[in-house]
């Protein structure tokens, strides 16, 4: 079953930043409801994509996890911009082969990363932060020459690209793997069973508690007549009370879950789904990914040397 399209797309008209209606800063209630909806939407979207047919979806999860981690490590090891760019091209090819919406895949990375990482890294292009060869002089400041340095610009370009490639690889992993399969795969990395079990249950009950949060905040929104009254102190008191009430719900839930586990025969020992054994195609994929990683690191060293 896939989520209907109207549920996973955002409605333009209701965004507080749109030209429709009066512009005002989003209230904390609206923001929390929107945040909760976004978490739900992302989880549904990744379940939909994971259910499609494609290259990465057909690879055994453990093999895929190890292969993509090798690529991720490569992205953090290489020192040349060209190598990073080539690695990004590899992720785009993988995304196309796995049937990911390509516009989404490119936009998700290139819309937000230059905005955040780019803004953070911008001052580092100045010679005040990164000393080096000034290529774009910007004038003088208290008698010192100020300008953008070649080293600073290179560092900024590299950081943005590196973050973009890393995010792309993680997006490939999460979008093409069902969450329970991904958790089973995490065990292959010597993560203790207890942690994996807690992780899986936390993810499951996250959505249960998320709907409790949404209900609390929707009830608050429904009762609010004038959002500006009371000021931020009253708002903070409400947030603290709702977080406290949520803890009460969470604790009651954990008791119920425990009793349900015991009544189904839980004896403190953890049993997990056994994944299918990797076949020849899986191993071929893994060796290709590892070979590619080694190739990239070697080529990168050659370029630098």
């Amino acid at each position: 079953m896939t989520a209907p399209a109207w549920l996973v797309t955002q409605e333009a008209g209701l965004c507080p930043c749109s030209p429709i209606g009066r512009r005002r800063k989003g209230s904390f209630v609206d923001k929390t409801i929107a945040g909760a909806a976004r978490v739900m939407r992302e989880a549904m979207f990744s379940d939909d994509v994971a259910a499609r047919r494609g290259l990465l979806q057909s690879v055994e999860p453990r093999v895929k996890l190890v292969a993509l981690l090798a690529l991720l490590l490569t992205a953090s090891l290489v020192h040349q911009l060209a190598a990073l760019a080539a690695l990004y091209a590899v992720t785009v090819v993988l995304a196309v082969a796995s049937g990911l919406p390509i516009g989404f895949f490119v936009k998700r990375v290139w819309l937000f990363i230059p905005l955040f990482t780019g803004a953070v890294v911008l001052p580092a292009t100045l010679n005040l932060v990164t000393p080096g060869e000034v290529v774009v002089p910007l004038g003088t400041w208290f008698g010192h020459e100020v300008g953008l340095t070649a080293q600073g610009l290179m560092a900024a370009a590299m950081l943005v690209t590196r973050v973009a490639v890393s995010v792309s690889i993680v997006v490939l992993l999460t979008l093409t793997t069902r969450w329970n399969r991904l958790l089973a795969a995490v065990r292959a990395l010597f993560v203790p069973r207890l942690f994996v079990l807690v992780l899986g249950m936390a993810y499951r009950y996250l959505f249960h508690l998320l709907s409790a949060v949404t209900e609390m905040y929707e009830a608050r929104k429904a009762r609010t007549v004038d959002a500006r009254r009371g000021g931020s102190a009253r708002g903070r008191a409400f947030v603290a009370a709702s977080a406290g009430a949520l803890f009460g719900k969470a604790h009651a839930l954990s008791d119920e879950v425990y009793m349900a586990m015991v009544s189904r025969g839980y004896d403190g020992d953890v049993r997990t789904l056994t994944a299918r054994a990797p076949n020849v195609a899986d191993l071929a994929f893994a060796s290709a990914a590892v070979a590619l990683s080694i190739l990239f690191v070697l080529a990168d060293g050659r370029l630098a040397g």
Partner: protein
Amino acid sequence: MHIPDGYLSPLTCAALYGASLPAWVVASRKVRKVVKSRSVPLLAVGAAYCFLVMMFNIPVPDGTTAHAVGAVLVAVLLGPWAAVVAVSVALAIQALFFGDGGVLAFGANAFNLAVVMPLSGYAVYRLLSRGASLTSRRRAVAAGIGGYVGLNAAALLTAIEFGIQPSLFHAADGTPLYAPFDLAHTIPAMALAHLTVAGAVEFALTMGVIAYLQRANLPLLRINHRGVESAVVEGDQAGEGDVPARPRWRLLVVAFAVMVALTPLGLVAPGSAFGEDAPEDLDLAAYDIDAVPKGLRSYAGFWHNTLFDDYGFADERYPQLAYILSAVIGIGAIAVVVGGAALTVRFVQRRRVVATT
């Protein structure tokens, strides 16, 4: 404060995974001992709760919103070791399923937000809430201050992790390979944001939730406060009855010893710490400057009364040993200051108890 992949070098990520590992091992043992078989659902739901606390938008006076981390809140509610596991799992869900924070950088994020933040914040909370009744105002304020301190400790560590990148990892021509700002930039930037708005938000949420539970749902506070009286102040012993003090101290000592032993790591790393040397040691030619700037020369050597110049012995032999020794002495000095402060607090509290009875 979630560090994405790409900002830290793989070496730093590996080191911080290593730093988090002992905390995870100790935490899972402690938690199993304390809550036994109920631990799995309690930790799982606690982790989900952590994830949601980070989503709550908290209004700040100028009309915008900020969000808290809540690690110290969870430590006060469920105990510090349960908080280590719960926050780690919440961070893992964010990194693996929602792309918030890096996968390689998960060790770093866990060390800052899931290990140091709850443990340091909880220590402050315990210190300030000593002898306070379960429903006292001081307990709620102590939790808030714990949240503030824990958040700032985490922010400082994040700033240090960012700040050591350009001096340790750069190309031959000085191009930084990972995060480009050094300590002189990252620490003030992080401190400014977290000592003011983010710290205040953390304080407000942590204190607010404890105050709410004191009013509305006291049994929930008892999960991690067995034996704490809820009505009257009964001196120092009231809250300490069932908590053996020794193992806690032993653990702290072990943790410090590990950190001390790790201090010479910097000597093994290539490159020198930029901006920490005396003007004479600067490789000026590398930056195309032919003289030490006047301001730098006049301020260098402004403070000469250090105990050990450059953390080493005078003849510069055995650098690792000298580093460890100066770390030990540094910790000793800090311990004396903190211990003195703690004794003063306890003294003042005793007098207050005497005065009220």
